[in-house]
């Protein structure tokens, strides 16, 4: 048995698979909960994009930083937040990652370097650059990864933050999850360039396009960008091509695209592709994969049970944490 799959250590290749499965199982389950009316608010699922969060985060330590998006469950899971805490947050429970203050679009765990899912498109660019500035200032080996969608690339904050990060050679990687849609609108209708990686030229940094539905390609592209960042050679823009299998949010009628288009893209589902690659390399058998899926689905169901058993926050705590309490200082 080989010890690596095209340069990816076997245990890492398996860890990527487990994270992808965890994200998919969670998102499918959560979609169902939402449609059953058990969840409030909005839920934006990461289904179809799992290879990116799982592949990139397999290269990060807990002390490394990420910023996430409104479509942030995948990043939260990949960075290691427990399913119970994420699920409880989606239910608005006091046991949630943010004690019920944030919900689906604001899952965070600062102890794991997960600086928050973010309801503002393009909100993460500068935050990631600031975390990278901080890492460089403190002289650590930490990196800062900004996940964002192709819709965010037309925000002014993209330009402001990448320019700043490049000027200071900050240890940051800006990862475009190019899922082809900016909310309801296909990217090509609102973006002046087809290849988003060319925008890196404006900041004199590398811009790399790779298949975001192939965990191995994601891993290799991220590996190079992260090494570059950790070596003090500055940021990279990665344009990872993927596809959002679901609508903008769960319950989106998707009037803006053909069902056939979605079906065609499902053939490139990153999870079966990675399972096949692992199987071909004799790293993961079909039986083992089946076992992983079953155990993961059980863990997700357990997470719902955890949430259902958890209390809501007390109403008299609604004003906690607006400011830092004197006792915390």
């Amino acid at each position, binding site marked *: 048995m080989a010890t690596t799959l095209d340069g990816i250590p076997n245990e890492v290749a398996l860890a990527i698979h487990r994270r992808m499965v965890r994200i998919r199982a969670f998102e499918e389950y959560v979609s169902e909960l939402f449609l059953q009316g058990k969840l409030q608010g909005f839920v934006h699922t990461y289904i179809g994009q799992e290879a990116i969060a799982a592949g990139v985060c397999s290269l990060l330590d807990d002390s490394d930083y990420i910023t996430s998006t409104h479509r942030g469950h995948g990043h939260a899971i990949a960075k290691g937040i427990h399913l119970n805490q994420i699920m409880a947050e989606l239910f608005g429970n006091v046991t*949630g990652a943010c004690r*019920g203050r944030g919900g689906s679009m604001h899952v965070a765990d600062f102890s794991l370097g997960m*600086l928050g899912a*973010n*309801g503002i498109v393009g909100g993460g660019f500068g935050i990631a650059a600031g975390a990278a500035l901080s890492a460089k200032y403190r002289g650590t080996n930490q990196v800062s990864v900004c996940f964002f969608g192709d819709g965010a690339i037309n925000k002014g904050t993209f330009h402001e933050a990448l320019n700043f990060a490049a*000027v200071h050679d900050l240890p940051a990687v800006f990862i475009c999850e190019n899922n082809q849609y900016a909310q309801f609108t296909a990217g090509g209708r609102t973006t002046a360039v087809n290849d988003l990686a060319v925008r890196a030229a404006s900041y004199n940094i590398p811009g790399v396009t790779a298949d975001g539905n192939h965990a191995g390609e994601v891993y290799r592209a991220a590996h190079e960008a992260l090494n570059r960042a950790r070596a003090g050679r500055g940021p990279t823009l990665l344009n990872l091509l993927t596809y959002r299998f679901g609508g903008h949010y769960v319950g989106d009628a998707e009037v803006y695209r053909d069902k056939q288009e979605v079906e065609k893209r499902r053939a490139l589902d990153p999870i079966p592709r990675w399972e096949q690659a692992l199987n071909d390399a004799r790293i993961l058998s079909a039986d083992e994969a089946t076992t992983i899926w079953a155990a993961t689905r059980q863990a997700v169901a357990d997470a719902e049970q955890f949430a259902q058993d958890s209390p809501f926050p007390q109403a008299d705590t609604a004003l906690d944490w607006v400011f830092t309490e004197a006792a915390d200082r």
Partner: protein
Amino acid sequence: MSTKRMSFGQATVDATRFAMRQDERIIVLGEDISWGGNFGQFRGLLEEFGPKRVIDMPISEAAIMSVSLGAAVTGLRPVASMSFVEFTFGAMDEIVNQVAKFRYMFGGQTSVPIVLRASDGTMRCSASHHSSSLEVRFAHMPGLKVVAPSNAADAKGLLRSAIADDDPVVYLENKQMTAKRAPVPEDDYNVPLGSATIARPGRDVTIITYSIPALRALEACAQLEAKGIDAGVIDLRSLVPLDMTTVLETVAQTRLAVVVHEAWRFGGLGAEIASQITEALFKELVAPVARVGAASAPIPFSPPLEAAVVPGVSDIVAAVERVIG
């Protein structure tokens, strides 16, 4: 404590220097700050602390704010200069949606120790994009603290407290005041956030104000004294937290109040303060609380027009005479 006459701007440099010497986590970032800033409020910091801690930013207001946020939640304590307060609109998404909300919406996992410095108010007819007073935009948003000192001594002590605070503090420094000199304690010292001061006691009526209108209010008091009216002035210094205790205790005595600011009167902080006074002291009040603020127009350039829109000493005198009746 021995004092030294220095300008408001120098007093803020003094406070920053004391803070940076004590705490390596403090960085200063903004446009042109290695040249001292527009009003000398950063002069000498680069020379003492170097470019690693005194960072010239591109003209990218959103990045100034969001980079500060990312640094603040990962161990640093940024002091961010937004130059003129109007430029904060270019970063309002970051200020309101991120900086103000980060602690709360993530369930208290992080604090956000940022000081946002911005110069506000009119000065030598700087026209609509360099003359506004926007404190109410920040004060309205839960999660932001707001201070607006009116003299060099408070400028130093409040900035020291703002930098030491673990929450985001918007520090508004009036442009006309930057060069005004006053005695300032030479040593390191703090003026606590959320504490108003009685700038002048007065038996007949209480003027409640902050920033440069506090100086205008004191001038108005001198004119009123000649007319036999003993008016007092409360300088709020902090707008969030707001020291309503001092306001209510004082107005309970005088039973007449006038709130003064250079920001627009419509929807201004004066409306909030007048409302709180009325809710607490309705039966004690002899007359409705009066408000003095700018007329509802963008601040115009031409000198007589600017003077017509922005309230001056005579407007304060007139408002006091009106409530006294």
